[in-house]
């Protein structure tokens, strides 16, 4: 089965990804973002990129896919810049596994 990849974000950010062949979903509002995320996850999208600005609003909805092997929800910076949420997610995973954030010091 062929899976697909999508980008959720504000229309400005999302525009470019359309050109390179990803499905794009332009949303500006929290509830809509969560709804679209679940819809994409259920319809054969293996990788869903979401802008950090939106990801910050719906952490629970994203957390739902943490342990799901076939759906990866990956935060990316938007045109407004990076909030560091992606890296933070990585550090959280380390904390979960090791018990302490051992990446931080470096």
């Amino acid at each position, binding site marked *: *089965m*062929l*899976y*697909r*990849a999508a980008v959720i974000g504000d229309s*400005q*950010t999302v*525009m*470019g*990804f*359309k*050109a*390179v*062949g*990803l499905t794009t979903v332009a949303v500006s509002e929290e509830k809509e973002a969560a709804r679209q995320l679940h819809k994409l996850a259920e319809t054969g999208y*293996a*990788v869903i*990129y979401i802008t950090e600005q939106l990801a910050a609003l719906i952490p629970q909805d994203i957390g739902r896919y*943490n*342990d799901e*092997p*076939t759906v*990866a929800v*990956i935060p*990316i*910076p*938007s*045109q407004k*810049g*990076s909030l560091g949420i*992606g*890296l933070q*997610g*990585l550090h959280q*995973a*380390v904390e*979960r*596994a*090791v*018990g302490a954030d051992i*990446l931080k010091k470096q």
Partner: protein
Amino acid sequence: MARLNVNPTRMELTRLKKRLATASRGHKLLKDKRDELMKQFLDIVRVSEKLRLGVEKALTESYAGFQAAGAVMPPEMLEQTFLYPKQRVGIEMKFRNIMSVDVPMYDVITKTDDKADIYPYGFAATSGELDDAVFQLAGTLEDMLRLAEMEKTVKLLAQEIEKTRRRVNALEYVMIPQLQETIRYITMKLDENERGNLSRLMKVKDMMVEQNIKAQRARDGLA
């Protein structure tokens, strides 16, 4: 430490000893699994952190390109150019097994292979900045998918490590001490019974000897 609620019998003792042996072996195996998982996990995390920083930088750059293009082109026009994309990205998903954790691996399948043939618009009415931005973003796509793969792997491994660590701790600090405590309790109880039985026998023997002596003396007195 609480001991298990069992009858102090010899049968129970053998059963518990067997369980203790299994628990100790499981503990050792799980501990090895945890250590190996941790080793792999840390390697992947380091690579994935680097990759993320790279992707974020590349994305920011191509956003700047789009913004520059947006500055020289009217926004409706910009939107129009992307109305019908030429390129389509599909993902073939395979699974790789890391220490019994299935992690996904993505293969990109694109509709057009030619890197120069992805522009969904004519070049006449659009600015050159746009071409550059699209080209750069297309180049980042591969890294973005790799990043998705790595980050998913990190999350799945983190979950497995957490689970394994819990199991190791449960065995080490609850199961094994409990079993040891119960085994000691049963051994003590059995030994105590044994000693009780022995002293009772000695006492009975003493009484019988005394009785015999008395009977003998009575006979001797009569004789």
